[in-house]
């Protein structure tokens, strides 16, 4: 009868899963029925007992370690879906505009009329930079803002001024200043580590240029992606003897880079300058107290190969 229903639902009641009206009826019944109240008590006791296996909060160490391990995993994970970058997402595009639907139609009209693809190429001689004109199809130029809208009074004519960012393309050889400028910019500023890696890769072919070397050092010190940092290390390697800045940047990497591969690579690249006093100091410290066994032993070996001073 009623008790049967209550006994079936007392579990849901304890979990707060009952609908409001069912909960009300159950509580009303409990007020009058000792049997069912006892059943509720038993269920609650059972639940309390289950908390002898408590849900523990993961320790901060565990959280941090998991995050770091995940980050390393993400670096190597395949994101082979670059077609995603080319997707034109109309929903996001329209949301950027934040408009009443009626006017967005007007924008489409203006956009298509004013932004028909105009591509042109300038070709001049061998190796000279070839610059293409702005390619602004609606898919590739994103609207960054609407400047003004006005409607001719008493007519259907609407005019809208909007700003766009359009993708351009530059082609040329590594010697071109413009190409170098873009590469330097990309190495520092692109949020996509793949693009940063590509630019650093190209820059390593030209590290004689002061700016390029600075960019490589910057990438080595500050890039968040260990692959990019390793690339920069590769490019700077040959200059460790001639340029003290390069040596110092590598020392920093050796001491504090989060990635053991980068540290090891830096250690090996510092070989030609191991006799320098700053390098020796670092090696001594590492040989004594570094966490990483390989680095400790390598540092010891390098120190052992040094002629004895003071």
């Amino acid at each position, binding site marked *: 009868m009623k008790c049967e229903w209550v006994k079936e639902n007392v*579990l*849901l009641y304890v*979990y*707060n*899963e009952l609908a409001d009206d069912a909960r009300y009826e159950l509580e009303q019944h409990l007020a009058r029925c000792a049997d069912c109240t006892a059943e509720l008590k038993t269920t609650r006791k*059972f*639940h309390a*007992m*289950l908390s*002898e*296996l*408590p*849900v*523990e*909060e*993961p320790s901060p160490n*565990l*959280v941090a*370690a*998991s*995050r770091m*391990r*995940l*980050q390393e*995993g*993400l670096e190597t*994970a*395949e*994101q082979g*879906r*670059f077609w*995603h*970058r080319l*997707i034109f*997402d109309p929903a*996001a595009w329209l949301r*950027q505009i934040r408009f009443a639907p009626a006017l967005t139609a007007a924008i489409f009209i203006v956009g298509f009329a004013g932004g028909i693809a105009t591509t042109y190429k300038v070709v001049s001689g061998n190796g000279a930079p070839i610059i293409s004109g702005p390619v602004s199809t609606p898919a590739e130029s*994103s609207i*960054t803002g609407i400047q003004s809208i006005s409607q001719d009074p008493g007519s259907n004519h609407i005019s809208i001024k909007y700003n766009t*960012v359009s993708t351009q393309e530059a082609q040329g050889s590594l010697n071109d200043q413009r190409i170098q400028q873009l590469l330097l910019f990309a190495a520092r*500023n*692109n*949020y*996509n*580590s793949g693009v940063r890696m590509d630019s650093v890769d190209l820059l390593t072919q030209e590290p004689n240029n002061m700016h390029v070397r600075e960019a490589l050092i910057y990438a*080595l*010190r*500050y*890039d*968040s992606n*260990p692959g990019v*940092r390793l690339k920069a290390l590769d490019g700077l390697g040959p200059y460790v003897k001639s340029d003290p800045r390069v040596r110092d940047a590598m020392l920093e*990497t050796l001491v*504090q*880079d*989060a*990635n053991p591969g*980068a540290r090891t690579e830096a250690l090996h690249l510092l070989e030609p300058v191991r006799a320098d006093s700053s390098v020796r100091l670092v090696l001594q410290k590492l040989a004594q107290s570094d966490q990483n066994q390989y680095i400790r032993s390598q540092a010891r070996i390098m120190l052992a190969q040094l002629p004895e001073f003071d």
Partner: protein
Amino acid sequence: MPAGAWAVPFAVGECSHPVVRRDPREEAGGIQDPQLRGHMAGQASGRIDDTLLVREAQRGNRAAFEELVRNYDQAVLRLALHLTGSEPEAQDVYQEAFLKAYKSIGNFRFECSFYTWIYRIVTNLCLDHLRKRQVRKEDAPVATDASGQQYDVLDQIPDGRSGANPERDLMRRELGKRISHALEKLTPRERMVFELKHYHGLKLRTVGEVLHTTEETAKNTLFRATQKLRGALADMR
């Protein structure tokens, strides 16, 4: 290179989306209901933030994905830790779950919330883990003690954690162990439903969604699981 690479703001570069702000309700420690052990709800930002982050992540923005992870990873770790009982195993589940999410975020079509989606991934991994464990259990070395009770030899390995009150700790660990044993008697699905509902406070409707089934089925599974557990733990006070 600063080891705190998690601090990279995702608005670097050509991103033209508004910067995501943390939902102030979340900061105030939102959910007041003591019954609701769903810390997940308190940890996650509001739905709209997730949508922006997911879209960014789908475009290849890793920092956005990392921000998403930060919204959910403690809850995921908590679930994996309680279910597996072991920190390294919990870490493995965590790693697999988020790597899987990262690789397949392109297929996420917003037909459910990201919350449900990530929970589904983790739950499926946990189910696999439970099934593997069941198979291993059949071969686990079992011995009989003086009173004729069977016990798992592997359980005799001491915990290594020292408490202030060793006897009470021992008692508590005993009880905890018995509950663990009883939970292991459930089928993987029953265990999962019970775990999500009882230990992590998810609503039955969410549990159903996460397991790709109806609320009604989740409810019945919960009933079965509870009955089995009561039977297995009948002699515990």
